[in-house]
C-alpha cells in the first residue's frame, strides 16, 4: 500500500498535468525515493491510483533505466560507458570497480552497500571518466579517485 506521504506527493503532481497517466513516471520516482525501488505491489498500487492497468504501467517502468524494478543497495553507483569516457579509460575504471566491489553490472554487494550499473554519457566529457553515485557526479576518475569516492558512501 502507498503511504500517506507517497500518496500526497503523487497527488501534488496530478495538479500539474492534464491526465493522470502523465504523472505515472513521477509517481514511480516518488515511490522509489521512499523505498529504493518499485516493487510489483507498488506498480499495482500506483496503477490503481492513476487508473491505469498494471501491465501498461510496467511497460512504462521497464522502459526507463532510472526506474528500478529490482531492489538496489544502499547506494547506486553508475559508471559512464559512453564514447568520451571509453577513450579516456572506461575499461580500466570498469575493471577497477568490479574488482573492488566484487560484483558485475546489475549486481549488488553482499553487504547491500552498492549496486553497480552502467550509465550513458553524463555530460561531463571534459572531465572523463565520470560516474554517478546516488545521482551525485564524480569526475576525473582514476583508481585512487574511485576508492576515495566509494569510501564516502557507507
Amino acid at each position, binding site marked *: 500500500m502507498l503511504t500517506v506521504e507517497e500518496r500526497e506527493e503523487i497527488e501534488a503532481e496530478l495538479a500539474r498535468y492534464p491526465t493522470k497517466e502523465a504523472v505515472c513516471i513521477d509517481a514511480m520516482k516518488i515511490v522509489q525515493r521512499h523505498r529504493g525501488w518499485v516493487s510489483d505491489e507498488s506498480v499495482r498500487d500506483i496503477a490503481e491510483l492513476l487508473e491505469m492497468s498494471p501491465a501498461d504501467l510496467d511497460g512504462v517502468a521497464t522502459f526507463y533505466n532510472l526506474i528500478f524494478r529490482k531492489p538496489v543497495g544502499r547506494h547506486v553507483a553508475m559508471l559512464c560507458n559512453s*564514447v568520451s569516457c*571509453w*577513450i579516456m579509460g572506461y575499461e580500466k575504471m570498469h575493471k577497477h570497480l568490479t574488482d573492488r566491489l566484487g560484483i558485475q553490472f546489475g549486481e549488488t554487494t553482499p553487504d547491500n552497500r552498492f549496486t553497480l550499473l552502467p550509465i550513458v554519457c553524463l*555530460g561531463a566529457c*571534459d572531465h572523463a571518466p565520470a560516474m554517478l553515485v546516488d545521482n551525485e557526479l564524480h569526475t576525473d576518475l582514476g583508481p585512487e579517485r574511485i576508492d576515495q569516492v566509494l569510501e564516502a558512501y557507507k
Partner: protein
Amino acid sequence: MTQERPLTEAIPLDGQALSLRGYEQVGGYQGLRKALREMSPQAVQEEVKKAGLRGRGGAGFPTGMKWSFVPMGDNAPRPKYVVANADEMEPGTFKDRYLMEGNPHQLIEGLILAAYATQADVAFIFIRGEYKLAQERLAKAIADAYAAGYLGKKILKSDFALEMILHVSAGRYMCGEETGLLNALEGKRANPRSKPPFPPVAGLWGKPTTVNNVETLANVPHIIAKGLTWYQSLSRSRDYGTKIYGASGKVKRPGLWELPMGTPMREILEEHAGGMRDGLRFRGVLPGGASTDFLVEEHLEVPMDFIEVQKAGSRLGTGTMIVLDDHTCPVGMTSNLIHFFAQESCGWCTPCWSGLNWAKQILAAMEEGRGEPGDLDKLAFQTKFLAPGNTFCALAPGAAEPLQSALKYFREDFERHILEQRCPWKS
C-alpha cells in the same frame, strides 16, 4: 576587440549559478520586456527567423520557421505548449548542462519568449534525471521568476500568462527525440511518433507544441534585446550567432568555448583545446556528438557551421567534438558507439533494433579477435537499412553516420582486425 560571448559571459567563474538579480544586472529579461512592450508574437517569430537562428540540439532546423508552423490566433487549439529539450544525452555533449547550471534564467527567459511567440499557455523544461545540480538550480530560478512576475498570470503587467513546469525524466536517449520526448511527458514509453503531423501542429495531448534545445532558447533573449544586426555580426559565417563548441578525448585541454559560428575546427582543437596530448597524433573527430560522421585530418580547416560541416560529409550536430587519437582503436570506438545506439534503440523500428544489434555483435566479435571475411560488407549493408526514410526517427540514421564513415576512413584498421584475428591496440 574582444569577442562577445552572449550565452556564457555572465556565467560566474566560481561555479555558482547566476542569480536573478545578477541576470537582471547584465540585461536579463530585457528581451522579454521589449517583446511584451512593443512586439507582437508574430514579430518575435519574424525576428528569430530573420536572425537565422538554427537549432543547436543537433538537427539545425531553423527555429523561427519551426515556430511559424504553430496555428495562431483565437481559433487555434488550446492549450498550446512549448518545451525546452534539456535531455542532453548525445554522447560527447556537455554544453546544455553548463548553460543550465551557470545561467538558468537565460533558458527560462528564452522559453518564455518562445511561448510568447507561439501564444503558448504552458511551458515544460524536460530535463534528464541525472542532471541533479541543473534541476536544483532551475527549480529555484523558476520560483524566483514567478516571484518577480516573469511567470504566472499577467506577466510584467501584460495580458500574457504562462505556467512553467520542470519535468525530471527517468532516463533513455530516446527522450531527446522530439516526439519520444512528448510521449515521455505524457507518461508513456518514449517511442517516436509518426510524422506528419509534426509537433507544432499536433504535439502534447494532440495540441500545438514547439520543442527547442536549451542552447537554441538561450540565444533568443539576446536576439530580441539586441537585434538582428548585432546578432549576425557575431558570426564568421552564413550561419549566424555564436556556438558553444566542445572537445573531449585526448586533447591537452578538453572543455567548452563559446566562439563565433563558423570558427574553423583546427582553431578550436589547436588554440582552445591545446592540440593533442604529447606523443599522440590526431586521427579523426566526430564533430558534433556520437551521431555524426567521422572527419579526418584533411577536414581540419572546415569552418564549424551547419553549411560547411555538411559539405565536408558530416554534420555540425551539437558542436561538441570527440577526438580520436592514434593510440585509441577506431574499431573499438565504433564498437562503443554502436553498442550505445543498439542499447538505446526503443525497439519500434526493425532496421534500428535488429540492424544495430547485428552491427554491435559483428563489431564486438572483431574487437575480440573473431572477425570474419565479409564482416565489412555486412556492416556496410546495415548502414543502408539504417539510412533516413526506413525508421520513424533519427536514431538509426544517426547511428549509421559514425559507422559508415569509420568504414570509409579507417578501413585498413578494420581489415587488420579480421586478418590478424585480434585488436592491434590490445597488448
